């Protein structure tokens, strides 16, 4: 919870009398239990909208559940065993991971670079800081539709530009790798500024004196960045990586709207850019209406996200090995 920032001492307690006023007893109960009450809304909401659907989905995944049917026979883990042998599912997993990698890595690097720029003394700094967030507040659907048109085979602007420089038209929608790139562009466009602001906030918490002493020691801008900024940002980087992992592996709107026409949920004729969430939707809803199978996909996706997030965190801990100076934890509080 928040820290009491007001430097004034609290109002003096009322002078005690021999008899305990009823408010005192109440006050004690209050101190003991009201923190729970404070956090209760979150857990209530999480229980209703998070935990319950999660458990219900698992329950559904153990059944042969035709969305329209009235009988849902129990089949145990059959949906899962079928799914593990389902080539289309693994194809979707590869797509998702592919899009995730080629969108997240450049995105976070660009965000870091952008944050570093914004952290300097610039004119109209606030304006720039606000500007990087603008892509994030535009509607995903609008972005996806615009990009879908830009990357059109025949009437798209990207191919038109490529044509100007003498490159043949690229089949953005029916070439697997090209479609990954196109979708990654959308994701990057939207999320780079968001991550940059998070990095920027963390950068501002780094005490200036560290940079000053580094500068006295003769460290250049680049050296300062890699030896001070990046190591001290590690917790923040881990946070953004986890958030990006969750978001990236659940990617749905961009690839779904990138494809138009009949049955866009396949992500192209040969499922070139069908992500796991799209595969889940295809099975749970149109055209299969197999709710049990779709739920099994959802749970495997959950497992996949947990695994990928764990791997990312482990990798990040190993990499960028420099430990932040011990004094840091304290000096952080003093900053700003």
């Amino acid at each position, binding site marked *: 919870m928040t820290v*009491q920032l007001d430097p004034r001492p*609290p*109002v003096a307690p009322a002078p005690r009398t021999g008899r305990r006023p009823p*408010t005192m007893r*109440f*006050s004690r109960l*209050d*101190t003991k239990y*009201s923190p729970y*009450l*404070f956090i*209760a*809304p979150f857990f*209530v*909401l999480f229980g*209703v909208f998070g935990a319950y659907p999660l458990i219900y989905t698992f329950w559904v995944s153990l059944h042969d559940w*035709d*969305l*329209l*049917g*009235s009988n849902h026979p129990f089949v145990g883990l059959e949906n899962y065993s079928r799914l593990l042998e389902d080539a289309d599912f693994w194809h979707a997993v590869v797509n998702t991971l592919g899009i995730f990698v080629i969108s997240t890595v450049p995105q976070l690097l660009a965000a870091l670079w952008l944050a570093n720029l914004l952290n300097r003394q610039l004119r109209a700094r606030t304006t720039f800081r606000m500007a990087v967030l603008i892509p994030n507040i535009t509607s995903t659907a609008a972005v996806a*539709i615009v990009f*879908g*048109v830009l990357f*059109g*085979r*025949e*009437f798209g602007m990207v191919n038109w530009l490529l044509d100007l420089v003498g490159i043949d038209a690229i*089949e953005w929608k*029916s070439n697997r790798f090209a479609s990954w790139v196109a979708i990654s562009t959308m994701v990057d466009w939207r999320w780079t500024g968001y991550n940059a602001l998070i990095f920027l906030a963390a950068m501002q918490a780094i005490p200036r004196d560290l940079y000053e002493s580094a500068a006295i020691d003769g460290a250049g801008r680049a050296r300062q960045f890699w030896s001070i900024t990046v190591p001290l940002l590690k917790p923040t980087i881990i946070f953004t990586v986890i958030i990006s992992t969750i978001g990236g592996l659940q990617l749905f709107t961009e690839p779904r709207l990138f*494809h*138009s*026409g*009949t*049955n*866009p*949920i*396949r992500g192209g*004729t*040969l499922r070139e850019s069908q992500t796991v969430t799209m595969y889940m*939707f295809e*099975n749970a*809803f*149109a*055209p*299969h*209406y*197999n*709710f049990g*199978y779709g739920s099994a996909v959802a749970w495997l996706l959950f497992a996949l996200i947990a695994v990928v997030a764990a791997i990312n965190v482990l990798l990040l801990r190993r990499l960028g090995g420099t430990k932040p100076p011990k004094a840091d934890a304290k000096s952080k509080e003093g900053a700003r």
Partner: protein
Amino acid sequence: MGVFPRRRLAAVALVAATALFATAGCAGDEPAEDGKITLTVDVFSQFGYEELYKEYMASHPNVKIVERGTGTNLDDYSPKLTQWLAAGKGAGDVVAIEEGLMVEYKANPDNFVNLLDHGGAELQGNFLEWKWKGGMTQDGKLIGLGTDVGGMAMCYRKDLFAKAGLPTDREAVSKLWPTWQEYIKVGEQFKAKNTGAAFLDAATNIFNTIVLQTAGNAQGYHYYDTSGNLVVDSNPAVRQAWDTTMDIIDSGLSGKYGSWSEEWVSAFKQAKFATIACPAWMTGVIEGNAGVEAKGKWDIARVPGDGGNWGGSWLAVPTQSKHRAEAIELAKFLTSAKGQIGAFKAKGPLPSSPQALADPAIVDAKNAYFSDAPVGQIFGEGAKTLKPVYMGPKNQAVRTEVENAVRTVELGQRKPDQGWTDAVNNAKKAAAK
């Protein structure tokens, strides 16, 4: 902290109350305003009911009609409807069900009111026999009243035909292609003139037309036989349609604009193809996509081969409707001969009622957008005699796989043989899901 316990408690109470209110907020019905009841009608694409609603509301002052989903793609509409039905909540009082999905909804008839319990039986004479049967479940319940049928024709652009030195008069054009093989020959002539446009929009649309036609004229089923067995690989009608489509692709006649995609819509606007297989309801789609600029540039000729049916819908009343009696009444009105004529005039869906089809309003109907083509005659002629195609339990999923395989060949991702193997294997897989 801990200084103003009372105020803080008030805050806690407020937060808790807000949370409770937020979770429980959406329960209960909104009270009827001035005694009116609201009937919601769920449709997709273009049903052309706007004028009919006005008329109905004028004669039923206690009813207010709200339509949802006009212009919605069927692919977006059907999952929504299924979710509403599965959840037992959310569906309109009257819902449209498309041909390809009717089988799946019929398999679970409890979701819908049995109209035979509400005077439905006496309506039988108002519908073409096969359309009436289409709304009937195996155990004899009537869950849907027919709206339109998809009589077939071939729409073409006169300006592009003129550019390629082909005849533009609709009678002359119809004579060019009594069969699909001749259609291909015309296409090759067209292609040789380099007009900058393709001969047809997309191979999937042509394939779907041919397969429904060949199947209708042969066994009366395509992907599933009438006992519900998947026969994609053994039904000669499917293979024949496949081969003809491969010939069309092989001759390089398709513009490869994936049907219903944004590129397809752009291609309409930019006059990038000369012909498109058009069931009656497609005329509304063409007009919407090509826009007013192209008015009078389109015309309608006979479809190669012998007629056929593609598409058409039913109206049903979900059991979850809170105003069943009124909803049934409205569905009956919209599907009456009068209602079907009104819809035809507005957006072109061809009536499924023999009375409507015989009505001068339809017989003499001309479509100004399509150079005053006598749409009533062109589509109506075939509708009375056409043979419907039986659709099996997972029709939509199977159809998706087969059409998708056609598209992979069209885009050059697969050779025709590989495409066929994919079509058969993926169809089997989809049917088993």
